[in-house]
């Protein structure tokens, strides 16, 4: 009776407190003003969430800690059953779970011992990793140490409780305590009386319950909040690999804030992302900005935005939205926001599906459109796009000059075509990339593909403008392009630029442009597979391939460019250490192509070094920006004489000539 009263009081306080904190967190979530994304496809979500949560698929991508985490996760699920029974029986001794039958109950008891050991192993590995191995991106955290201490003590207290339960009460199911009964025989050697042993059982039971209740109070303020947030976050994740940026509706006159000036301008899903982060650092380990000493760490930006949210919590909950402090603060600085190449390695690596780029893009939108605050070298880029539809300082009337004498029809000449060749600004104006386009034209002609270009009617897709944060400029370019494409009833598009590819394919939908868009790697892979292209010439003995972020991580095209290279006779395709979804960005994405890089090492040089490590004399690229960055890298490393950077179209051209 005394125990019951004590438990009601203690548990009431503990659950009351943590419940209050969780309610605040939930209110905070609801106060977010940013437009909430749509969540359809419920059945699909259930399946994928089951695999990702119960199956721990995403966590297991890092096998060692993945297994440890899976052990802890599953262990806690099962042990919670025992804890529930413990709570129930403390309230009323009759509320034992024995009603499930003797065999089932024995199994439950057995499982408690088994999973306690299971969890303990997991925790021991996690502690070893955090305290001894110390991977760089994990960092040091008192919160993490506290969590290990809490969870470790919980397991130890269960074993002690079970052992003295065996000694003090001699329960009928004692043999099911297949580990604790051995511990009990050890403690039996202490020679305590049955009463003392029973007392110790009560003591350790209370210790265990206190730890559980204490932990419940600790969780709302800890990164361990992920045990509640990460599940829903996983179920609500962006389901497709391909992802367009959120489209702003400028026609909506109630919309007066573009992008995020304050934390509350983000959406509640963004806040759930912040709650879900458990600071594992997988994002940071792959971030090209962080790995070249930029101030941006995808892990830190999430933690820092969470700090911003919490620091403003009282103001937000009191409805004093005006007084909420800026999203850009002492931790999340302008340099942090501009360092991102939007390569998306962080999002792809995140085991709880946090979408870092959404937040960075929203912050940029506010800086550019509301405050006109961005790296000064970007201004002429915007102006060039506005007046001439290209980031480069060239006239729109010169866009098709590269194609002079090649006999390519323009859509205005009304040709019958299978596919429209979207040239892109780099292919139109950049000397190096004009050659790539010419090679691709050779390949198309050789495969007898009927194609045309838009000529001077083509404009920049606006990719860089959008990713830098100038949504207004992007939309004006997108609308014009969609109008042009729809006027010619274009259905199939092929392009050698992954940025154009991504924008045309995933983002023009919102402006009435739905096309079947193929990257030239996909197109050439198909031409080879169907026998329309027959690569016969040797090009190089060894080739390494650099993944473009907007082809790979943003659109899941990893194998097609590789199959194009492998189709070339007698070539060995050697992979860099970081390849495919772990591939390192060249440094040009997210509009970084148009910004100076003044902090840390240069991303393109570091990536070039990784390519040079393979010893391949050819670095293959499938993106005009990667081409520029890697070519510069090869120049910086003084390897121009021994290493060439070639587009896969140039390789195919050489091999089929």
């Amino acid at each position: 009776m005394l125990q019951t009263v004590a438990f009601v009081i203690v548990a009431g306080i503990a659950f009351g407190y943590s419940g209050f904190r969780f309610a605040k967190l939930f209110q905070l979530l609801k106060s977010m003003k940013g437009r909430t994304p749509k969540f359809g496809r419920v059945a699909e979500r259930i399946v994928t969430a089951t695999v990702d949560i119960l199956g721990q698929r995403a966590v297991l991508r890092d096998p060692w800690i993945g297994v440890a985490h899976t052990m802890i996760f599953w262990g806690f699920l099962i042990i919670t059953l025992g804890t529930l029974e413990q709570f129930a029986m403390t309230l009323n001794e009759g509320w034992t779970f024995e009603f499930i039958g003797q065999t089932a109950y024995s199994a439950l008891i057995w499982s408690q011992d088994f999973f306690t050991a299971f969890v303990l192993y997991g925790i021991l590995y996690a502690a070893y990793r955090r305290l001894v191995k110390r991977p760089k991106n994990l960092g040091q955290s008192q919160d993490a140490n506290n969590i290990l201490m809490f969870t470790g003590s919980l397991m130890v207290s269960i074993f002690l409780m079970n052992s003295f339960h065996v000694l003090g009460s001699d329960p009928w199911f004692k043999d099911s305590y297949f580990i604790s009964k051995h511990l009990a025989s050890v403690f039996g050697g202490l020679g305590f009386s049955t009463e003392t042993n029973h007392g110790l059982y009560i003591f350790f039971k209370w210790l265990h319950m206190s730890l559980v209740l204490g932990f419940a109070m600790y969780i709302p303020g800890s990164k361990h909040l992920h045990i509640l947030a990460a599940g829903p976050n996983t179920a609500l994740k962006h389901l497709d690999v391909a992802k367009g940026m959120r489209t702003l509706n400028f026609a909506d006159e109630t919309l007066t804030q573009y992008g995020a000036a304050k934390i509350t301008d983000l959406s509640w899903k963004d806040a759930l992302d912040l709650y879900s982060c458990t600071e594992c650092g997988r994002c940071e380990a792959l971030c090209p900005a962080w790995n070249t000493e930029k101030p941006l760490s995808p892990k830190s930006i999430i933690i820092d935005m969470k700090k911003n949210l919490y620091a403003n919590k009282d103001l937000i909950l009191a409805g004093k939205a005006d007084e909420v402090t800026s999203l850009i603060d002492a931790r999340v600085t302008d340099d942090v926001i501009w360092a991102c190449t939007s390569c998306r390695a962080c999002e792809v690596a995140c085991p709880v599906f946090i979408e870092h780029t959404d937040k960075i893009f929203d912050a940029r939108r506010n800086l550019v459109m509301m405050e006109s605050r961005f790296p000064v070298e970007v201004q002429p880029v915007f102006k060039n796009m506005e007046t001439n539809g290209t980031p480069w300082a060239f006239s729109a009337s010169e866009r098709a000059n590269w194609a002079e004498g090649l006999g390519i029809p323009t859509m205005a000449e009304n040709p019958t075509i299978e596919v429209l060749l979207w040239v892109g600004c780099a292919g139109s104006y950049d000397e190096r990339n004009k050659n790539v386009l010419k090679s691709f034209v050779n390949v198309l002609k050789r495969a007898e593909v009927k194609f045309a270009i838009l000529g001077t009617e083509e404009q920049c897709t606006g990719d860089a403008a959008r990713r830098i944060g100038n949504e207004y400029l992007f939309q004006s370019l997108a609308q014009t392009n969609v109008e042009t494409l729809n006027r010619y009833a274009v259905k199939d598009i092929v392009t050698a630029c992954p940025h154009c590819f991504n924008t045309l394919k995933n983002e023009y939908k919102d402006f009435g442009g739905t096309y079947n868009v193929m990257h030239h790697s996909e197109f050439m892979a198909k031409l080879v597979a169907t026998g329309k292209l027959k690569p016969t010439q040797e090009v190089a003995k060894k080739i390494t391939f650099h993944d473009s972020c907007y082809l790979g991580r943003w659109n899941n095209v990893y194998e097609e460019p590789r199959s194009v290279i492998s189709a070339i006779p007698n070539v060995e395709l050697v992979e860099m250490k970081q390849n495919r979804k772990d591939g390192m960005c060249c440094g040009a994405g997210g509009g970084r192509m148009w910004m100076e890089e003044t902090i840390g090492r240069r991303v393109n040089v570091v990536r070039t070094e990784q390519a040079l490590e393979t010893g391949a004399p050819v670095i293959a690229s499938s993106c005009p920006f990667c081409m520029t960055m890697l070519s510069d890298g090869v120049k910086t490393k003084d390897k121009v004489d021994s290493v060439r950077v070639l587009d896969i179209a140039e390789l195919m051209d050489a091999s089929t000539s």
Partner: protein
Amino acid sequence: MNLYVCIKRVPDTEMKVKLKADNSGVDLAGVKTILSPYDEFAVEEALRVKEKNAGSTVTAITAGPAEAIEVLRTALAMGCDNAIHIELADGSDSNMAAKAIAECLKKEAPADLIYFGKEAIDDGAAMVPQMVAARMGIPSVTIVTGIEYSGATIKCKREIEGGSSETVEVTLPTVIAASKGLNEPRYATLPNIMKAKKKEVKAIKASDLGVAASDQKVKLSNFQMPPPKAAGKKIEGDAAAQAKALVQLLHTEAKVV
């Protein structure tokens, strides 16, 4: 303070120049137009002065055909408060533009500072700022790359021949012709772009300002494209021979030594 910025709509710097069939001028059909880049420095400077002096207004003025309103919208988006469009026919000369602007300014609230770009990048005449100042009987400082403001007198740093600069002290009101280096013009924020679309532009006919056809002093005719650039010559041989050949060429072909 009453601040005025006089601006001009010009063809984009990247345009491919083509002449009209009768060589009477440059063919501007289908050419993108922009706010003349030096005028951007002028707008930016006026806005910065306004931001430091509470209660100031910046009025943008342009003289030109109907399409010239575009640059007023650009100036408004950058942050100007008012805009005046003086309707003046295409092909009018600097004298007409200067007269129109000066007469317009005389009717507006007395100016403290009137900013111009040092020249428009289309005709590159670089005359209107000084002509306006003369008509208004106030000083003008041209090719200004830096200004120190202190009450009724300001110090202007201006570029002079030979890559050096001089500092001129001048009493307000004055005309300033801005050059590159004066500031970094801002990029308009979206709320300001939206607001600029709705702002009223005051329209005045040049004829109402007393501008007549007889004010046109200069008529341009018979435009010609520059001759195509000839291929370069490479001088071979050792250093002494190269020097000798170079001097020879400078003497006989270039006729500069």
